[in-house]
């Protein structure tokens, strides 16, 4: 759906992105990850046909975004960073305008109704955009991106500045939309990529740091290891665990092939262990079996939140961000 080759953009003497080469298959939700100033927005603006590249090429659906700009733009629903809108227009009025300039003339109103519905803004359709809350504005931006039913959605930090409930709601919406659209969304929130994306392109200081399916990138960066959190209830072994959780945990984990203990902390009734395991294999199952055998209650087993965060950090952290 998207293919770039040595895509480069300079602003004067400053290079925003350099020699980006990546591709995004049709039908996937892809996260575009990078710290502030990495060049995400610049790249997306080039893909959306707004900024001409300094050199290199980008194709969307097989169409060159420079030489075949108009046709390429018809394939894209683009939502820019911080969602610029016309505050003096009413939501429905705005979407009608957007539908018209996107070439929808017949069944315009039906297209607008559908977009209102999909983005969940039907209830504010008659209201002035300038009076809406941020969450609604963001969704009006999404409705605009959706109105012409483009096969590709390019969203620049779509959940930026939303409250946690709104973020979850927006992510659900994206997952649903993923069934019909290829989605390329930028973010610097790792959990977002973990929550909605199948693939990821990581960019740092204008260069590609990693790209591919999420699991692959994670595996490559962590050397095939991942961290798992196990929450235990010690039951009758309460005293021993309370006294020295580290020692008790060490005794428990030591015997399991392919696992290393990272930390053990008691919190209230429960104890949280973080263990590092190889990506493949059943070391975690072994551990759980062992716990049950030892009469410990297993309350939860979950991947360590932010394991991609570590990847991200490893790729972009160290030198500090601009």
């Amino acid at each position, binding site marked *: 759906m998207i293919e770039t080759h040595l895509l480069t953009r300079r*602003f004067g003497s400053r290079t925003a992105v350099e020699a980006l080469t990546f591709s995004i298959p049709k039908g996937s939700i892809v996260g575009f990850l990078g710290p502030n100033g990495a060049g995400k927005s610049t790249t997306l*603006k080039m893909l*959306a*046909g*707004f*900024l*001409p590249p300094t050199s290199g090429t980008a194709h969307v659906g097989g169409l060159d975004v420079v030489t075949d700009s*108009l*046709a390429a*733009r*018809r394939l*894209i629903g*683009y939502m*820019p960073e*911080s969602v*610029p*809108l*016309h*505050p*003096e*227009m009413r939501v429905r*009025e705005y979407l009608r*305008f*957007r539908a*018209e*300039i*996107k*070439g929808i*003339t017949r069944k315009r109103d039906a297209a607008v109704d559908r977009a209102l519905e999909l983005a969940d803004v039907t209830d504010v359709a008659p209201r002035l955009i300038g009076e809406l809350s941020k969450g609604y504005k963001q969704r009006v931006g999404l409705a*605009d991106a959706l109105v012409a039913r483009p096969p590709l959605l390019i969203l620049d930090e779509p959940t930026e500045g939303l409250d946690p409930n709104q973020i979850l709601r927006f992510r659900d919406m994206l997952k649903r939309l993923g069934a019909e659209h290829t989605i390329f969304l930028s973010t610097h929130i790792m959990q977002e990529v973990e929550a909605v994306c199948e693939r990821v392109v990581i960019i740092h200081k204008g260069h590609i740091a990693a790209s591919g399916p999420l699991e692959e990138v994670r595996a490559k960066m962590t050397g095939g290891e991942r961290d798992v959190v196990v929450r235990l209830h010690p039951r009758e072994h309460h005293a021993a665990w309370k006294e020295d959780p580290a020692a008790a945990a060490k005794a428990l984990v030591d015997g399991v092939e392919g696992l290393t203990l990272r930390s053990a902390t008691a919190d209230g009734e429960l104890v949280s262990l973080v263990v590092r395991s190889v990506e493949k294999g059943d070391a975690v199952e072994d551990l759980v079996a062992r716990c049950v055998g030892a009469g410990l209650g297993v309350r939860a087993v979950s991947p360590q939140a932010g394991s991609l965060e570590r990847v991200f950090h490893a790729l972009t952290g160290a030198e500090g961000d601009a």
Partner: protein
Amino acid sequence: MRTAWAIYKRELIGTFCSPLAYVVMVAFLVFNGVVFWFFMSMTADNPALTGSRSPLQMFFGSTILSVLTLLVFSPATTMRTFAEERRSRTFETLFTAPVTDVEVVAGKYFGSMTFYAALWAPTLLYALVVKRYGPVDWGALASGYAGMLLIGSAFVALGVLMSAIARSQVVAYMLTFMAIGGVMFALGLGSYVFQEESTRQFFSYVNLWEHMEHFSVGLIDSRALVYYGSVSLCSLALATRTLSVRRES
């Protein structure tokens, strides 16, 4: 074409939903009301001074007052067009839709022309006022309005160009003011400054004052038509070019 129409409609919403539009319209009416009253009372008090000219002819003619009207008010009709889209960054949503630069410029230009025409529309009442006191030369009146639209067309096109260049409405206003004031009026002055016949003729060809004088007495000069037509087209072509080149910063 449909796209240009959609952009035109949105332009009208943007213009007439902003309080600034009404401030401009009221200021225009107050200013021209005073000017018109001035010409009326002049004609009434001192017929010898105005000769055969009716107040309406003076209103559209080449007095400093009507020139000032154009200079001050026409930049206000265009300053919003692109500068405001740049400021609010809707510039980006506009040009990532499948629109061509020409369609956008056309929609903006006709939107501004509509605003410009809306400024002049209430002055039609002046003709009714004059009619109460004497005959009105309807032909000259029509040509007066045609002239204002024609000259306005060139100034609005220049304004659209300046708004495409500028980063803010204020800068767009000032650039247009300077473009109209500097280029158009300075060019016209040439026909009084230069003695040599061919040079004088050239400057007379681009002399706004002369054009206005002709329009006010019912003379529509085809040379003026060509002149303002070309200024409009060149400005709009340059605006189109500016947009495709200057996307950011």
